[in-house]
Structure formats: structure tokens, C-alpha cells
């Protein structure tokens, strides 16, 4: 452990460092010059690989870091904000919750099953490395048109990958969303969110504290899979990416479960001072980030790392993304204890190095130094960019498109409603979540299928509610407003179950930031999130940025997914989205402005992604949230459901059908002074449909009024299995609710269970 300059020996088999090799590593000429300046010499091949991973978009956030600083991150209840493995908030009674969302878009595009499975594995590790036991997961997914065979293959593989992994580890799925739109044809979005629970005093962080403490590699062995996954995830996809399938890691949920139990036992034992997943950029990022957080150095001998293949080079060992591995910092003298705990769980632990005082990230191979890099430039020195951002002319034109022909369209409204409810976006997602274990841990109070899910905290009446939301079409047409709507919708989903919105994790899925039009989307979306989160007092405690979601130059819709947590005071008093009683009054909170821009109606019935998306009044949203929380806490309601895609009519269908246990007819009369289509299918924000016993109606209206929330009875719940009737002016819809159920529940199975169903890739 010398602090003097160390001689670094290039290995005999190392290729020569050429400009081509540097470019292949995803580093620009300027970035390479920065590396030369930081080192004062040319890097070895191994060192180049390390820099390439740490300065990749995925690890270095080089194009997003400056924008992310605009997000509000603080509140009295935030225990850990961005920068750790996961954000942590205080939820009361001595409990803390760790939560985070992460993307696995690129791997899932080339290998959907393993791509999605390892996405779940990675986010779970981020949670339990904070000392928290995972208690729930959510997924936010986007695919192309489900009538396309390859899309069905991707969708089927992703769902099976998520299910097989999460089911085996035993973490209930609490919700999420999935949308299908041509904008995601070749670039699916797979964002996984996990939530974990711990006592507030059990928090542990990923810092390499204590000079002389021991670095240990625990869990699975290191193989050649996923080398340079972080760099892969930082570039556009093309035909050639099929050949990058080897960069996709392979998941083993059984080992993950053992690693989970072993890690929690390790943390509880006090034998370790820090722990981190060897995730993106593997040993390189975990070791250098842990050193960086503590302001220390680390020294590792790669010959000590347990490998599953012979003759692995230092370059490969440092950059492997083999799954289910952890780096832990053991207190000196307690290494045996660490090993004993790992052995109990039938896993390996190996001493691979120690914490040093010289701030260097030093790598040896059998005692010979093969990399010696200052940790600070490695982890903090990645150049960050602020790019020029200009809105694309085409988008501007689309937004300004006149949609009056959509609003004034006539025809069979009942048939149109059936078309909408049987479109993959609006139809029931039961086909997916019935493949996910939703009840393991016996704490799921509200399961997937409505808006937010709720899980109870053990031994209390308290619960955690969670949701993910984002309408990519709105964000495409108006990124700032679309992102603010995503935050507002997430909050509405939480208040509908009676939860107080508390904190946010976000996943920014965009195309290439090097294009001014995309950078514009990114900046605007961050500003939209910042504005809404600031007003709602829901700080962003972390998340993930996934850029370069493009194939052959075509980018996805900008998709800033919002994962939001809320706290439920009493799980006995939550509210669900399905109508519960015949005779209940159906009440609309908020106002319909008949906005059709970016609507599902325009997409399904006019094949249009155009127009100005709905406006969002954040102050009004906040009042609506407060009114809603009060109504649920006072137990006034039979149901509550947010108005979103498909407008009021589709919200009413969802409440009438619930998750299929039973269905109700409705009698609703709408008197809005506008044409039937915007009345039924307009997507104005800030609206919630609630139902209540008639004798409570006056109280509901009074409570809404005290928060200045418009509130009007629009009808009543009629008989089970009855007629679904909405009168809008002189026209409307009228059909047996059973017909809607067939459309709503049958749409995805009809596409996925047909003989033509694409077969997911075989399990590895």
C-alpha cells in the first residue's frame, strides 16, 4: 500500500492504444485528452476499459447530470437522496423505505427474457444493499404495436422474464403500467422499480470506510458475460446489436434470493461497513464508487476474484457484469464471519483487496500493478455537457395540428367505446399481472389492476402506496407539460387510494442527447418534473437515465417515467377503483375541458399522434389531492379512480368492471356544453371519478367545495351485470356491461394466447 507513484505494467497481450481503440470505447478525443491529463501518461488497455465504463453515459451521466441538478431532492423525511444505491425516506414509526427505478431497455431489446429478468435482479440488489428487505416491485413497460409479431415476442419475453425472476425471489408485484405505440417499435422500455423496508437505524451505505478494511467479493462467480454492458447501454441500437446479445447478462433468481438473505444477515451482523451491487460496469464501478464516496482508495488483486472461466484478463474481470455479485467492505478481523454467513447461504466470499488511504483505484494481477488510477477523476471527473436544445419543427407542427375534425366526429359512440376498450392500451392488463406473484409476503392490500398498489407495513396499520406513470405521447408533443402531467397523474393515483404523496424516483428514457431535438425534450421534461415535484413536495430521491433509445436514427417518445411513493395512515381505510354498491352516486371531481390533443381516441380511431396535450393546473391538482385524501380518510367513498387515457368514459368502464370479480351497470348523464366525443373521451387532467352512498353525497360535495374542487354528481351505479349507459347531449353509449367486459379483458389474451403467439426465447 504505497502512496508513491506506482509503476503500471502493460500486459504482454494488451492491444496498442490507438485512436480507433479509444473511439471503440465510446470516448471522444476531448475525453481521452482529459484522461491523459488526469494520469500524466497514456493509460494501459485495462485502464482504458475502466475509464470507458465509468465515463459512459450509463455510469457517468455526462449528458444529464447538469439537468438533474434542477430537480428538488430535499425534504425533512428524506434520509438518503440521489447518489446512493437507492433513495431512502422516513415513513414513520421507526420505519424507513428504500426505493428506486432502473431501466433495462437496451438488453431487453435484444434479449427480452434475460434483459427484463436481470433488470429486476439489479433493482432488487440496489434495495437490499441499503439494508432494506424488498417488499414490492412495479414495472413500467413500453412496446410497439402489439399486432406485430416481433413486438409480441418482446412483450411475452419481458413479462416472463420479470415474472420468473420476481416470483422466485418472492417479492410481490404491486403494479405499474404498460403501453403500446409505434413510437416504441424497436426500442421497448423496461423500467423496474423496487421498494424495500428497514428500521431507520439499519441503514448502510455503499462507502469504502475504514483504512485497512477488507474488500470481499461475495455471491456468484465472475464470468465473461455482460462485459461492457454499461457502454452498450450508452449507444444507439442498430442491426449490429443483435450481435451484442453476449453483452446481455444472464440472471439467476435463486442465487439472488440467497444473496438477499445473506446480505441482510451480513448487514445485521455488523461485520461489514459497506456493501454495493456489482451492477453496471461490475467490479470497476462498485469498487471505485465505494472508494469515491468515502474519499478513500482501494487496492484489488484480480487474481483473488473467484471466476467461472479460466484465463480471464484483468480487463474482463473488472468489466464483467455477471449477475448476483456484491462487493462488501468487511471490518478487519471479521472476514471469517463474513465467509461463514455466506457459506450458510451456500455462497462464496473471497478477500480481494483492501481500503487504502491514497485515493487511488489500484488493480493488481498476482501482485503486479495493472491499473493505478486516481479515484476522484474516475468517479467524479467524467465531463458533463450542456447541449444545445431546439424543438423539432415536425413536433411543433404536430402539436399545432387542428383536431376539430376529431372532436366533431360522429358515428356510433357505443362502437367507438368498444374499440377503445379493446385497444391494448386501454384494455385490462390482467394477462400480465396474473403471471406475477402479487400476494407473497401476505401484505398486499391493493394489488395491481387499478391505479396505485398498497402494501402494509408489518405490525402496523400503516401502508406504502406506489405507482408508476408517464404518457409518452403527451411528452412527445409537449415535453415539459407531459412530464408535469406524469407527476400529477402519479400523485392522483396515490391520493385515490388515500395515500399522501411523499417522494419520487424517476427514469428518464430518451433518444440520443447529441441531437438538439432530443436534448430539448430531456431538458424540458426535467423542468416539468422539477416544477411539479417542487409544488407537490415530492422530492426526487434518485432514479436512472437511459439515453440513446434509438434504432437507425429513430428515437422513442420521450418517456420520463415517474415512480411515486405515498404513505397510507390506515390500511383498513384505503379506497379502490371499482364501484362497490348499486345505488351509489357517481361523482366527478374536476372539470372536463374536452381536450383531445395526444389522446387515445385520436390514436385508436384516427391513427393520429397530434394536437396540444391537455393542460395541467398544478395548484388545482394540489387542492384536488388534498380533498381526495380527506375523503378517503373520512371513509366517505365506495370507489375513486383517476381520469386518464381514454377520458371519462373509459374511467367509468374501468370502475364498472374492476378486476373482473364483478361488474356493475351505470346510469350517467353528462351535460357539458361540448360535442359528445370530447365529452366522453377528452383527456383533461385534474379529474377523479368517485362513488359514494347517496346519504354521503352532500358531505362529499361540501368537502370538495372547501378545497375549491369542482364536484358534481353525474349519475349512479346501477345493477350488477346491468346496462352501461352514458347520455351526452342527444347521443351517448348504451350497452350491456358484459360486452365491455369481453372487450376489456379479452384484448390482450386474444393477441397473446392465439396459436400465432410468439415464443419467448428459451430460458438460459
Amino acid at each position, binding site marked *: 500500500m504505497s502512496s508513491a507513484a506506482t509503476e503500471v505494467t502493460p500486459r504482454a497481450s494488451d492491444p496498442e492504444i490507438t485512436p480507433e481503440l479509444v473511439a471503440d470505447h465510446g470516448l471522444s478525443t476531448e475525453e481521452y485528452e482529459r484522461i491523459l491529463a488526469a494520469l500524466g501518461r497514456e493509460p494501459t488497455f485495462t485502464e482504458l476499459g475502466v475509464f470507458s465504463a465509468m465515463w459512459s453515459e450509463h455510469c457517468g451521466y455526462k449528458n444529464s447530470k447538469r439537468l438533474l441538478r434542477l430537480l428538488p431532492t430535499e425534504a425533512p423525511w428524506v434520509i438518503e437522496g440521489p447518489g446512493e444505491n437507492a433513495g431512502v425516506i422516513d415513513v414513520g414509526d421507526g420505519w424507513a423505505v428504500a426505493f428506486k427505478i432502473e431501466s433495462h431497455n437496451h438488453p431487453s431489446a435484444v434479449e427480452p427474457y434475460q434483459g427484463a429478468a436481470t433488470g429486476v435482479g439489479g433493482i432488487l440488489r440496489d434495495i437490499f444493499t441499503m439494508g432494506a428487505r424488498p417488499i414490492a416491485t412495479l414495472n413500467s413497460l413500453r412496446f410497439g404495436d402489439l399486432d406485430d409479431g416481433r413486438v409480441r415476442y418482446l412483450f411475452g419475453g419481458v413479462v416472463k422474464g420479470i415474472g420468473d425472476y420476481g416470483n422466485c425471489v418472492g417479492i410481490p408485484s404491486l403494479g405499474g403500467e404498460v403501453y403500446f405505440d409505434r413510437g416504441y417499435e424497436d426500442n421497448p422500455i423496461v423500467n423496474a422499480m423496487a421498494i424495500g423496508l428497514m428500521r431507520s437505524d439499519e441503514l448502510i451505505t455503499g462507502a469504502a470506510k475504514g483504512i485497512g478494511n477488507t474488500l470481499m467479493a461475495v455471491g456468484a462467480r465472475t464470468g465473461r458475460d455482460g462485459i461492457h454492458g454499461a457502454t452498450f447501454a450508452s449507444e444507439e441500437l442498430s442491426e449490429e446489436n443483435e450481435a451484442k446479445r453476449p453483452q446481455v447478462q444472464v440472471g439467476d433468481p435463486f442465487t439472488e434470493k440467497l444473496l438477499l438473505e445473506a446480505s441482510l444477515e451480513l448487514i445485521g451482523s455488523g461485520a461489514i461497513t459497506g456493501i454495493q451491487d456489482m451492477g453496471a460496469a461490475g467490479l470497476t464501478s462498485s469498487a471505485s464508487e465505494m472508494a469515491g464516496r468515502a474519499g478513500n482508495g482501494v487496492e484489488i488483486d484480480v487474481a483473488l476474484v473467484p471466476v467461472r472461466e479460466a484465463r480471464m484478463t484483468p480487463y474482463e474481470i473488472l468489466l464483467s457484469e455477471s449477475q448476483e455479485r456484491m462487493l462488501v467492505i468487511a471490518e478487519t478481523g471479521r472476514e471469517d464471519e463474513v465467509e461463514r454467513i455466506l457459506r450458510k447461504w451456500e455462497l462464496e466470499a473471497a478477500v480481494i483487496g483492501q481500503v487504502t488511504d491514497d485515493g487511488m483505484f489500484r488493480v493488481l494481477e498476482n501482485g503486479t500493478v495493472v491499473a493505478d488510477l486516481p479515484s476522484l477523476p474516475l468517479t467524479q471527473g467524467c465531463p458533463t455537457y450542456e447541449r444545445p436544445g431546439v424543438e423539432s419543427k415536425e413536433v411543433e407542427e404536430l402539436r399545432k395540428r387542428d383536431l376539430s375534425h376529431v372532436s366533431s366526429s360522429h358515428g356510433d359512440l357505443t362502437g367507438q367505446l368498444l374499440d377503445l376498450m379493446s385497444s391494448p392500451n386501454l384494455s385490462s392488463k390482467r394477462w400480465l399481472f396474473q403471471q406475477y406473484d402479487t400476494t407473497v409476503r401476505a401484505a*398486499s392490500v391493493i394489488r395491481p389492476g387499478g391505479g396505485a398498489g398498497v402494501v402494509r407495513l408489518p405490525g402496523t396499520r400503516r401502508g406504502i402506496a406506489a405507482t408508476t406513470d408517464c404518457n409518452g405521447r403527451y411528452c412527445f408533443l409537449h415535453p415539459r407539460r407531459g412530464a408535469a402531467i406524469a407527476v400529477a397523474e402519479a400523485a392522483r393515483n396515490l391520493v385515490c387510494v388515500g395515500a399522501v404523496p411523499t417522494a419520487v424516483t424517476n427514469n428518464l428514457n430518451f433518444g440520443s442527447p447529441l441531437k438538439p431535438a432530443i436534448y430539448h425534450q430531456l431538458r424540458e421534461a426535467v423542468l416539468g418534473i422539477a416544477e411539479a415535484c417542487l409544488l407537490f413536495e415530492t422530492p426526487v430521491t434518485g432514479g436512472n437515465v437511459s439515453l440513446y433509445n434509438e434504432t437507425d436514427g429513430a428515437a422513442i417518445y420521450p418517456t420520463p417515467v415517474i415512480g411515486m411513493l405515498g404513505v397510507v395512515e390506515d390500511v383498513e381505510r384505503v379506497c379502490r377503483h371499482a364501484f362497490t354498491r348499486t345505488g351509489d352516486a357517481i361523482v366527478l371531481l374536476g372539470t372536463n375541458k374536452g381536450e383531445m390533443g395526444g389522446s387515445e381516441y385520436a390514436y385508436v380511431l384516427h391513427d393520429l399522434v397530434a394536437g396540444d396535450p391537455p393542460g395541467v393546473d398544478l395548484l388545482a391538482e394540489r387542492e384536488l389531492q388534498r380533498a381526495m385524501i380527506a375523503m378517503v380518510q373520512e371513509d366517505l367513498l365506495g370507489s375513486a379512480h383517476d381520469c386518464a387515457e381514454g377520458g371519462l368514459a373509459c374511467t367509468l368502464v374501468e370502475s364498472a368492471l374492476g378486476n373482473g370479480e364483478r361488474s356493475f351497470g351505470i346510469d350517467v348523464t353528462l351535460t357539458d356544453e361540448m360535442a359528445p366525443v370530447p365529452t366522453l373521451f377528452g383527456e383533461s387532467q385534474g379529474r377523479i371519478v368517485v362513488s359514494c352512498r347517496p346519504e354521503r353525497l352532500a358531505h362529499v360535495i361540501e368537502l370538495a367545495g372547501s378545497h375549491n374542487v369542482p364536484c358534481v354528481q353525474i349519475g349512479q351505479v346501477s345493477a350488477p351485470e346491468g346496462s352501461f349507459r352514458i347520455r351526452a347531449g342527444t347521443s351517448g353509449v348504451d350497452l350491456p356491461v358484459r360486452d365491455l367486459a369481453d372487450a376489456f379483458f379479452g384484448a390482450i389474451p386474444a393477441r397473446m394466447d392465439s396459436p400465432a403467439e410468439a415464443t419467448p426465447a428459451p430460458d438460459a
Partner: protein
Amino acid sequence: MKVVVVTFPGSNCDQDCHRAVELSGGEPRYLWHRERGLSDADAVILPGGFAYGDYLRAGSIARFSPAMEDVVAFARQGGPVMAICNGFQIACEAGLLPGALMRNRTVRFHSFDQYLRIETTDTMWTSAYEPGQILSMPVAHAEGNYEADPDTIDRLEEDGRVLLRYVDATGATSEEGNPNGSARSIAGIMNEQGNVMGLMPHPDRAMEAVVGSVDGRGVFQSLARHLNGPGAK
């Protein structure tokens, strides 16, 4: 009642079973699969999960655990063993129960609330229910399709050892009401002596109204009644 919950590597319902015993007024304790010792146990639970990842056949490796040797001996001496979901698969592999659990008919994992019908109340596992009572409990499995040769199934039926059947909302057995394709809609059975019960649905997840159902309580209440009744040790 002192109930031992065996934890295999990959068990993920051990905590749920532990809590279900507590909620039923019993005293649960965990037994790690490498450990031994059931001398203080009044009953044993083999919980759900994915023991050893189920990468081979579900339950096929877990049966060789040291703890399973003790569980088999305990069962042979008449000790009550409740085998839920993956535990049912392990019990079949270990020869404690006849038959096997095959892949679901759809070849998919199924997770939802399932209606069940109590077929007999004359057992230590179901005495707290009413004959023919319709229950709702979560199921969550990929391999729950119960199969055995026809003679074995006939014997199960004749002996009144089919405890639970999958049914639809009306309480009738039917194609739609059978989630995984099990022979004769069988959801739960017991051995000849009646002291080993295997079932695919999760009574351990149906203990509290706030999570959706209290219909699982009867299984634990029946066991407690049996253990506390005349002749209890």
C-alpha cells in the same frame, strides 16, 4: 402449538407461514434445511417458494435436505405436516404424499384469488370449516397441475382424502374453475394416515381481511383444535 417452519434455500413463504402460526395463537420457529431437530415440534410446515430454484423438478433437490430426513421420520410417526405450494411439491417428491405436480396447463405462472370447496371436514386440517364451504384464497404457482395414476386418485376419492377442490364462483367444479388442469380439480389432499396435508393454494396468505381473505384461518384453527384436543401431547 409449537410449529416448525422449514426454510430451504429458495423458500419465500416461510415468513408468511411463521406469521400465520402466530396469528393462530401458535408458537412458530424456523428450521434451516441443514439443521435437524423436531423433538419439540407439534407440527411442521413445508412452506412455499422455489427451493433450490426449482431448476430441476420442483422439490426434487429439497427432499434430500438433512431437515427433510427428520420431517419424513416425524411424519411416519404421525406428526402433522402441512405442505403448502412448493412444500406440496417437496412432500410428493419425498414420498409423503402420492402423485406429482406438473406444469400448469397453460405453461404459465398463475397468480390470483381462487375459489375452493371443502370436500371433507372429518380431518385434522379441515374440521373448522363447514362441509361444502366455498373459500377464496390466493394461488401462485407454475407447477400446480396435480396428477397421479387413476387408481391412486380413485383411492384418494374413496378414502375421503381429497380435502379441497378448485371450483368456480358458483361452487361447481368446471374447466374454467380449474386453474391449472389438475386431475378432478384436486387442490389439496392428505396421506392415508391423515397427518400429512398437501395443498397448492395459500392459506398462509389468507389470514387477514385487509389483504383480501380470512379463509385460510380454518386450516390453522383445525390443526390447533386437533393438537389441543383429547390425546394431544
